Every structure is written in C-alpha cells, then in structure tokens.
C-alpha cells in the first residue's frame, strides 16, 4: 500500500508543559496513502502529538514535517494542507449541510463554483440532504459531513480523532469504506481510535503510553513486538500499566 514518499516525518518530537512531559522523543514516518493509527490509553500523548502535527502546538524539542511543511515554523502551510475531523461534531448545528460546506469552502479559499461542494456531497454519500440542518442529522450523517468539510480542499493528510465514537455499526462500515476509497487515491489518514477491531485493519500503527512510543509498524509487527495477543490485549495491558 505505502508508496516510498514519506508524507509525515517525525523526529525526536517532544512537548513539555512545565515539568510534565506529555510527548517524549517520539519518531516515526508515515507514507502517502497510508491509514495510520495512533493508539494508546487516555493521557498517553495521542492528542498532544496530533495537535503538534496539525500546527496547533509548537514542539518543545524535535521536529516534524507534514506534507512538506514544518509544524514548528510553518504552521499556516501545515493547516492549509491537512484536514481535521474532531471527536466531537465540530460543525455548526444551526447551519444546513450546504451552508456548512459553503463556509468551509470559503475558509479554504475554494470558489463557490469550484465543484468541490458537489464532489464532497457525492463522495461522502450526502447527496439528497443538502438543505437539512446539521443538528438534526443522524450520527453517521454528521460524521460524514464533518469528513466532507475536512476533505473538500483535497488535503494530503487527514487527521481523524476517534471518528466512529457513538456511531452505529452500519454507519461505521460506510465510513471506513469511504476512508479506504480516499486512501487508495493517495490521501494519508491519521486515525486515533478506541476500537481495536478497527485498528486491526489499519496499514500501520503507533502505540503510545505516557508520552513514549512503545511500538510502530503493521498490526502484525506490533503484536509481535508485544509478544503476541490481540491489539485489544495490548491496549488493555498498557492501560493497566498506567493505572
């Protein structure tokens, strides 16, 4: 799956808040078109890592480049080249589907007649509900609308923060179908999730605990590194170690 071209390069990435080190000397590389999972218990440094990669936080040490832009020195370029879908529904509930998409099209500098809104609705299976208020849609529809506005500007990298939390199985299946389509076309997907069955099907994974990178590789490689068991076993053992 992975082309040779690395789209994200992370080297010695560190974030300290006062005396507390949230992310400690983390390094990995992600290739174009990969679905890459960042896993770990709550407080393991997942969110901080992603916030740094999105250009929202400046690293205390180390460096990371995302789609050719340095997160520490070129956060604005980073933001223009990535998409981000937050865990909580981050779009406007009092706007319709179309209004939300028009808003994000404008924010990313896409013309109203660029055809990207129509593309997004088609690709995200939102065809017939353009004038529905976002607030009254089902969980699955909300999730696909959020993905649509995160991908309208054709970002090279999309960050998905627990994208399927609170969504029914049918909607989850449709969502991953869409994600795999987009990844196959070359968009890199960085995903955090608590569903280990989903993680089993990612291309590669990174496991974090207490800010340290424990393992990185394909699901099979990661399981071997931890000496066997399922991903869920690994996750639970890491969480117990935390507590």
């Amino acid at each position, binding site marked *: 799956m992975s082309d040779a071209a690395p789209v994200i390069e992370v080297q010695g990435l560190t974030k300290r808040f006062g005396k507390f080190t949230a992310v400690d000397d983390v390094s990995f590389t992600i290739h174009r078109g990969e679905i890459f999972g960042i896993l770990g218990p709550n407080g393991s440094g997942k969110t901080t890592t992603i916030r740094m990669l*999105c250009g*929202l936080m400046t690293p205390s040490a180390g460096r990371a480049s995302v789609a050719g832009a340095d997160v520490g020195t070129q956060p604005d370029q980073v*933001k223009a080249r990535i998409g981000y879908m*937050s865990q909580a*529904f*981050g779009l406007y509930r009092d706007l319709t589907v179309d*209004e939300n998409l028009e*808003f994000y099209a404008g*924010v990313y*500098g896409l013309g109203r007649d660029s055809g990207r809104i129509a593309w997004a609705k088609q690709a995200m299976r939102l065809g017939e509900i353009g004038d529905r208020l976002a607030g009254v849609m089902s969980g699955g529809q909300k999730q696909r609308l959020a993905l649509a506005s995160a991908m309208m500007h054709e970002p090279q990298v999309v960050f998905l923060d627990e994208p399927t939390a609170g969504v029914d199985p049918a909607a989850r299946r449709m969502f991953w179908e869409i994600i795999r389509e987009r990844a196959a076309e070359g968009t890199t997907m960085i995903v955090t999730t608590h569903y280990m069955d989903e993680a089993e099907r990612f291309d590669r994974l990174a496991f974090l605990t207490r800010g340290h990178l424990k393992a990185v590789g394909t699901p099979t490689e990661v399981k071997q590194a931890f000496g066997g068991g399922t991903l869920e076993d690994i996750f639970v053992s890491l969480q117990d170690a935390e507590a």
Partner: protein
Amino acid sequence: MNLSRLRSMIRKEFVQMRRDPATLRLVLIVPVIQLLTFGYAIRTDVRNLPTTVFDQSHTQESRAFVQRLTATGNFVQRGEVRSYAEALRQIDEGHVRAAVVIPADYAQNLKRGRTAPVQVLVDASDPSASQSAIGAAQLVGQRLNLEIVQSRVGAATTIGQAIDVRVRPLYNPALKSSVFIVPGIIGMILSNILIIITALTVVRERETGTLEQLIVTPLAKWEIMLGKIVPYVFVGYIQMTTVLVAGHFVFGVPIRGPLLALYGATFLFIVANLGLGLFISTLGRTQAAVSQTAMLFLLPNVLLSGFMFPREAMPAPAQWVGALLPLTYYLQLIRGIVLKGVGLTELWPQMLALAVFAVLFFWFATRRFSKTLE
C-alpha cells in the same frame, strides 16, 4: 489578510444570527423596551416636588401665583419661610426641593404695569427630576403673562412682560434636561447588549466544539475575531438608530449636531465594546461563567459612566474607574452631538479615547484568544 476567508466567516455569522430568533429579539426589541421604561419612569417620578414659599408681598396676587404653581402638580407647598437664607437652608438640608421667592413689590409692580420678577429656586442635583419642575414654573409665568397682558390690551396699556419668572437651578447650572437620558440609553444599550452577545458567541463556539474545527483551518485568529464582530457592528447601528428615532418621536429628543459625526463616533464605540466582549469571552470556558464575568463589567457601565449619576459628583476612585469605560467617553460624545449640537472639533479627545479602547481591547482579545487555544 484573506478576504474570501473573512467573508465566509461573516456570512456564516449572519446566517446563524437569522436562525436564532431569541437573540434577534434581544437585539431589536429590548432597546425599545428599555427606552420606554427609562423614558417614562423619569417622566412620572418628578411630580409633587416639596416646595417652600418666601412671600414678601403677602397679597392676593402673590397667593394666586403660588396657587397656579402648585396647580401644575409639580410643586407641593410645604410651609413658608421668612428669609431667603432660610429658603436656601431648607433646600440645602433636603427638607424641600424648591422655593418660590416673591419680592415685596410684586403686586405693586403688576398693578403699575411694570415687570414683576419672581424667583423659583430648584434643587437641580437630580436633573431629570428638576427639569420638568423648572419647565412648569416657566410655563406658569408665561400663562399668567398672557392673561395679564391680554387684560391690559383691553385697558389700552402698553404691551410688555408682566411677570418675569426667573428660575435658578441650584447645584447643576448647566441645566441638564430630561431628554438627557435618551442618548445615554443608546450608549448603555449598545454597550451592554454588544458585550454580552459577543462574549457569548465565542464561548458558544468553544462549548459546542466548533472552535476546535475552526482553528485547524487556515483562518487566522484575528480573522475569526473580526468575522465575529463585523455582523454585530450592523446590529449596533440598527439598535442605535432605532432608539434615536424612537427617542426623537416619542420623547422629542432633538438631534442638533452632525449625524455623520455621531455615526462615526458610534462606530468606534461599537468596536471598542465588541473588543471588550471578545476579551471577556476568553476569560471563561462556559457560557454561564462568561455571562457572570460580563455582569462584572456591566454594573460599572451603568453606575460609573455618567449614565445614571453625574461623574462630577463621584469620589475620585469612582471617577478613575469610570475613565476606563468606553461608555464614559461615548456618553460625552453623543450628548454633546445630539443635545448641544457640537461637532468633532470639540469632541476629538473622546473620539481618540474610543479609538484607543477599540485597538487595545481587540489586541488584548486576540492575544488571550491565541493563548487559550494552546
């Protein structure tokens, strides 16, 4: 600077505003309700001003004058005094709020066709209360004049002024009128509503999680801030115009000065308040917390800006706090322009103060906003 991004942000705010009828009502109807409440409250509480009389004439004519005065309902006679000094002391000590001083030669002057001066002393420290009393006293004088002059015409005597009622407002010689309150209401409504609405709009985006999505886009912090306030500049202008027009037609507030200067000053004032609202919004994480913080700013606005009480009468610390409020300067501006008819040549220091507030608050807000996102 990216206009397309900013325009999207502004358009979005307008659509959201339209979807939120409760806020629209707050924005459009509350100013009118406040105007009517304040405006009428001030009209009704000025009746029955306790008044003493220093009648040196002791004639039927002088008693008739006092009677006419009390018949207006503005004055209620509370005893008599025997000297001018005693009249002043009674007002000083607050036993009465007005005194009628009738000279010894009052009736004689009237009979001989000379002008008969009468003095009415009014405690004008509460300008809204004293104004209608003063007006009433002058009106009584004019009416009596007319009657007396007409009767003299019948008697073929010279036409002239018969009674000269001279009102001496004590403590407040600038004679602030009751229309004084309406421009003040404009300032207070703009300030309070705009601060609350902007403070809530940012924190609402934080609470609902939409802010998290916004900040990962190429939108700059100040673009988000500016996009939030531009729609409310329009709202502010609509509110101001509504109250000004209503005040003009309902309460007869004159608009003497240049409207352009007024709208220019209002722009700076609106931006300063929106900046303050944005700043307040960065001080809390929930709408409840932020509205509490906003209240902290609103009370001084009402009490210390000169809206309710003249600033000259306040102790120094209260004046210092007042000097930190944009409303203080705007009140001077709008009262100067609307009531006195002066322009920006006289009022540029206040304009400058508002401009400084606008820039400072916006700058503070953007800085704090960035910090709270980390």
